[in-house]
């Protein structure tokens, strides 16, 4: 059991994460963002992972894991710029030690293994953590990532958030195995089946796995059993594939409520502290709304500037073409 101070910090980050998530979902409903896959209900997995990572470790997240990015220090604007469609990724991966949020399922797991391989070669004590969803484990590339990591014994921790669904497809149609953690056996690596709504448990298991990885112990596969409380994205309609009872059942297992009542029982979370954290959350929500109001200056010509390190004449021609088009259309608008 992690000590009280850590648990309090985890609680704090979970509260902030949820407030952020709720705010962004609201903004998306208002049509302010292209899309937003909510992490509501999965705060224990997301925050435990973010908190367990050491500064030099790297995180390989999916579109689902925005609140883990937030917890690792990525700014609200940096996160939103992707979802509101400014650019494909809004933060500096090297500065944050986080890979761009991956959309092609399971592909990032292989990047995490390769990245860890390079660290291992240079004898650096750096581990990588790759998030995957339950559905993503069905992809061939998840298998290849697990296998490469095990054969090469790379310092890589795979955290599978089994939130019950791949969009509309329930876990029962995704795997016939008892648990996804069982898959670890087939790769000769340790597997852990954890209550994904118990932040203390998730934090303990992930921390151990990362330490072990950094110390040459090789990879691990951790399954956190949790639940996606929101729709897959704003364009989804969960009523077509799951009933409210199920959602309510999981609401009663809310990861924040659980750690909160524990911390209160233990006298660690005082009323004052709780209010203070709630205020911070409201501040974050305000900051998030503000972030959406200042819309950034986007330069269409940047479409050509980052594709290659080596300049290309033909691409420069296309850039000039667009530049001229933009000027003339501006001219038209002025006249």
């Amino acid at each position, binding site marked *: 059991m992690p000590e009280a101070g850590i648990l309090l910090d985890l609680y704090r980050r979970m509260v902030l994460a949820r407030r952020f998530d709720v705010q962004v979902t609201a903004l998306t409903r208002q049509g302010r963002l*292209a*899309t937003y896959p909510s992490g509501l209900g999965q705060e224990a997995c997301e925050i435990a992972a973010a908190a367990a990572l050491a500064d030099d470790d790297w995180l390989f997240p999916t*579109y689902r894991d925005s609140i883990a990015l937030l917890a690792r220090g990525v700014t609200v604007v940096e996160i939103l710029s*992707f*979802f*509101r*469609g*400014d*650019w*494909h990724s809004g933060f500096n991966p090297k500065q944050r030690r986080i890979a761009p949020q991956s*959309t*092609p*399922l399971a592909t990032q797991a292989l990047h995490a293994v390769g990245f860890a391989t390079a660290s291992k070669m240079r004898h650096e004590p750096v581990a990588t953590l790759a998030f995957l969803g339950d*559905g*993503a484990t*069905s*992809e*061939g*590339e998840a298998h290849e990532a697990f296998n490469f990591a095990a054969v090469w014994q790379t310092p890589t921790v795979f955290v599978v958030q089994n939130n019950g669904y*791949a*969009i*509309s*497809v329930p876990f029962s*149609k*995704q*795997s016939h195995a008892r648990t996804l953690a069982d898959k670890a056996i087939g790769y000769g690596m340790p597997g852990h089946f954890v209550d994904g709504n118990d932040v203390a448990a998730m934090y303990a298991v992930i921390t151990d796995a990362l330490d072990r990885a950094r110390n040459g112990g090789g990879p691990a596969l951790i399954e956190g059993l949790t639940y996606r409380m929101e729709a897959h994205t704003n*364009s*989804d*309609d969960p009523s*077509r*594939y799951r009933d409210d009872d199920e959602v309510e059942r999981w609401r009663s297992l809310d990861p924040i409520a659980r750690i909160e009542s524990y911390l209160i029982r233990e006298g660690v979370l005082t009323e004052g502290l709780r209010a203070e954290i709630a205020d911070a959350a409201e501040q974050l929500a305000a900051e998030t709304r503000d972030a959406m109001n200042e819309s950034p200056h*986007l330069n*269409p010509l940047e*479409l*050509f500037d980052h*594709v290659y390190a080596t300049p290309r004449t*033909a*691409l420069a021609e*296309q850039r000039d073409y*667009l530049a001229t*088009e*933009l000027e003339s*259309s501006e001219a038209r608008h002025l006249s």
Partner: protein
Amino acid sequence: MTIAHDTNVTAVLAQAPASVTLAGALNSALADAMAEDDSVVVFGEDVGPLGGVFRVTDGLSARFGDDRVWDSPLAEAGIVGTAIGMAMNGMRPVIEMQFDAFSYPAFQQITSHLAKMRNRTKGTLELPVVVRIPYAGGIGGVEHHSDSSEAYWTHTPGLTVVTPSNPSDAYWMLRQAISSNDPVIFLEPKSRYWMKDAVDHATPTAPLDAARVIRTGTDVTLLAYGPTVKTAMDAAELAELEDLSIEVIDLRTLSPFDDETVGASVRKTSRAAVIHEAAQFGGYGAEVAARVTERNFFHLAAPILRIAGFDVPFPSPKLEEYFLPTAERVLAALDTWQW
């Protein structure tokens, strides 16, 4: 805005009472094909109770049962690979790749098996599989949700590649694709899913391997397909104001290419341009320009132009408008010709 201009596109199409969206037309094509033939099955990611992320399979699992319409595990190579096995054993699977870029994990199954099995077995094992792929941009999708990869498929011998631009073609081309004994890559223009028009369920619009002249003109031939057909029709409208008479051909079938219909038009107008969203370099327009030039060189008054996406990855939602070909860009391109 999408709806507003549809009359352009569909002016030449047979009229019929019910007006449906392109997505709805695909849905009824699937339903009618399944009702007619027990061997037609539909599976893939979220095509069951959800009805697909674009609702193209809406209601099918309820109507036909989940042993004929079902959600598979999340793995594209697995979806195509098992569809191949089913087709080897008497079924006619219609499978969905949820978004264009997500067909790439299935690339080996499609190019090394789906396209080659018939040839490999001298016709003994035919693979009547339809791979439905929502493609192209214009809907503000985040990265990987707006690719146009037709050129990858059309360069692969053994595949038939088609794309409808309107509800009537959507209905009939999907029916024809399902009854074809060849594997068909069926590209569905996302940005046109919600376009509405009347569909005549009685008479096919045209054979699956035919392009169609959807607007006649004398000065220029515009070749378009899928999402750019509307762009071409809009351009033709605008050009008319400048007394430029544009003929528009909806290619419909990308492989095979309808040399006859296109050649006849180009020999008449002596000028042609092809429009697509995919990056220009090595895009489908290259084949169009190359073969139409090969076959009609001495009829051409000017080089065949390609109005296409820039040679960069598809942009983020807020920048796609600068990437996608517009009617204005088409007209500007025609102005570069010496007249």
